[in-house]
């Protein structure tokens, strides 16, 4: 029998998993993350640290920056790239996503269709990065981990995320249709 026709291959690697499977796995790994690292799951915070390390590598100092001024933040930056759980997890997400797409044999380098896409991606990335930092979290750290910690801030974030998504969809239809 060919691998492509194997039911196990299809169930595990080829077909998308259900939302319920995804939700249960996210809940399990969120719990593991909290137990092992002492903090709930976050993604974009580690990216800010990457920025700080790059800045330091070029001789800059972020010691006086308000965002990195706490002792905890300074200690984390001093421990370095390889000892930051958030960094390891983000690299794991990238490696895991690559593994999954290769196993499903769906890897493809997509062409850029228009300059509009580039502008939208860069603008969107800057806005998301800036927004996630001044809100102290992205849709993972502030929304998912916030709500899972029974924090009101997670729900407030959810309401405005939803409003933002409505505006975003309208803009998307206006500029990309």
């Amino acid at each position, binding site marked *: 029998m060919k691998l492509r026709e194997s039911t196990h291959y299809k169930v595990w690697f080829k077909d*998308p998993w259900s939302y319920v499977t995804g939700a249960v796995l996210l809940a399990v790994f969120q719990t593991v993350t909290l137990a092992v690292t002492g903090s709930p799951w976050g993604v974009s915070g580690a990216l800010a640290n990457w920025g700080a390390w790059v800045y330091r590598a070029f001789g800059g100092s972020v010691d006086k920056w308000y965002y990195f001024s706490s002792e905890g933040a300074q200690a984390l930056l001093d421990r370095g790239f390889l000892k930051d759980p958030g960094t390891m997890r983000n690299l794991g997400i990238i490696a895991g996503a690559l593994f999954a*797409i290769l196993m499903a044999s769906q*890897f*493809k380098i*997509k062409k*850029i*269709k228009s300059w509009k896409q580039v502008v939208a991606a860069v603008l969107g990335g800057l806005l998301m990065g800036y927004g996630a930092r001044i809100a102290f979290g992205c849709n993972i750290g502030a929304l998912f981990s916030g709500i899972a910690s029974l924090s009101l801030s997670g729900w407030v974030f959810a309401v405005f995320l939803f409003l933002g998504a409505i505006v975003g*969809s309208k803009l998307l*239809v206006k500029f990309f*249709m």
Partner: protein
Amino acid sequence: MKEEVLDCNGEACPVPLVKAQNKLKELEVGDVLVVQVDHSCAMKNVPEWARKEGHNVEIEEVDDGEWEIVIQKAK
């Protein structure tokens, strides 16, 4: 009965879905719309919408990470 091809390769969600919805409105019952996508979530949400609307849908994987969603307008 005619067949129309909609090239949505390189477009991210939800652009392929909205384009497919607009295009199908222009077609007659029995016509076939082929939506080419290379975004895996479009391969899920386009067929989901079309089946819910009661159209006949088939998905073909034409290459690594490339699909053709064949929709026959049923009503």
